[in-house]
């Protein structure tokens, strides 16, 4: 089981509270996590990555086990801790405010 933490605005859009849980086959990658997330919550398509290019939106970042993986290949395997669900896959919106 994969655990995904969405930013608050996308939780509202997807109508979920807390973490999202996904069932995925290994190896797990950013792309497979996001594909599964969007299949379960189609209203999130286009909000995290572009509909056409499938590239991460500029003001969205991905963190895993304390590491910023936003600029890693979307097909690189994610750590076992993500695949096993001991650590969540964090989707973060860039901080805005004063």
């Amino acid at each position: 089981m994969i655990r995904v933490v969405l930013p608050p605005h996308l939780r509202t859009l997807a109508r979920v509270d807390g973490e999202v849980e996904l069932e995925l086959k290994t190896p797990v990658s950013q792309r497979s996590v996001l594909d599964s997330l969007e299949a379960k919550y189609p209203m999130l398509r286009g909000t995290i990555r572009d509909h056409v290019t499938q590239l991460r939106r500029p003001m969205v970042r991905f963190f895993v086990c304390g590491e910023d993986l936003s600029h890693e290949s979307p097909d690189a395997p994610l750590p076992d801790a993500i695949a096993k669900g001991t650590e969540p896959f964090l989707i973060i919106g860039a901080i805005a405010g004063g």
Partner: protein
Amino acid sequence: MKGSPVNPDRIYASQTSAWFGQIIQRSDNAGKTWNTPGSSAEELKSPDGTPKGESNKFVYDTSPETGKPLTTHQWYDGTQHPWEFKRVWHLEPSLDDPDHIYAGVEDAALFESTDGGKSWYELAGLRGSDTGPKWQPGAGGMCLHTILLDPSNPKRISIAISAAGAFRTDDGGKTWKPINRGLHSQYIPDPTTEVGHCVHRMALHPSRPNTLFMQKHWDVMRTDDAGDSWKEVSGNLPTDFGFPIDVHAHEPETIYVVPIKSDSEHYPPSGRLRVYRSRTGGNEWQAPTKGLPQRNCYVNVLRDAMSVDSLEPCGVYFGTTGGQVYASADAGDNWKPIVRDLPAVLSVEVQTLP
């Protein structure tokens, strides 16, 4: 935001942010609840498979069959700049089908949905017209903000883009032509250019679809031949800069504007908020001010933030960047705030319920 003229329970709204992009919201119960079309729980259970989740997918049509090549347009500094979708500025439901709706977007293009906003396709003849490379963004971006549907001719649509001007199709969106003859913009190199005018808003009365009224960056204009020629009707307005313009529900020659001091000072002249009304289709204007602040008022009124109802007498409504919505139940004679502590008001729409 806008409701369907044939089903007041159906309302469409556009929300957007730099973080998560464009979102289209739809209500089927007059705003009690909202959903992103094509993504509801009911549709997730559909035996036809998972929904597409494409209500926010606005992709310029570059296909050889129906599309046009994605050209460049003019940037602020005169260089050419790639066409990039940014947001939906205006939603215009069709006059006869709640599932049929048009969307005006930035960078300027017109999109259409015939499935209640679940999926969108571009009417590419507009964006791909040969004047496209001359279009340029206004201060708010290169937005298509006005969509006027002709109730007597479903093939005719007039739109306006800042800063390109007004355009019209007479064949349901396949081909378009600029309709800017008579516009004069002294702040651009060629004041009478075919395209490049900063139109802020247009309005029509359904009984006279060939008469359009326009609030341009500066100048209030009218045409009586569906845009083939325009003439200025600013008359005695204290300033003819502004954003919204609207027409009385029952009097096709009664129109409303909110004069704003200038393009650099977006507030009413002398800090006095006044809605100017002309009962002669322009040129002669009066401003009944009862109920509107007449000192120290420094708000703006944005282009989508004025609307009229269809009651007798006609009700007029507008919202301000200071979060007030003012209403007049007597066609603009007397005003009162019906809400006054909102965030900046972007859109005011009115429904007259049975």
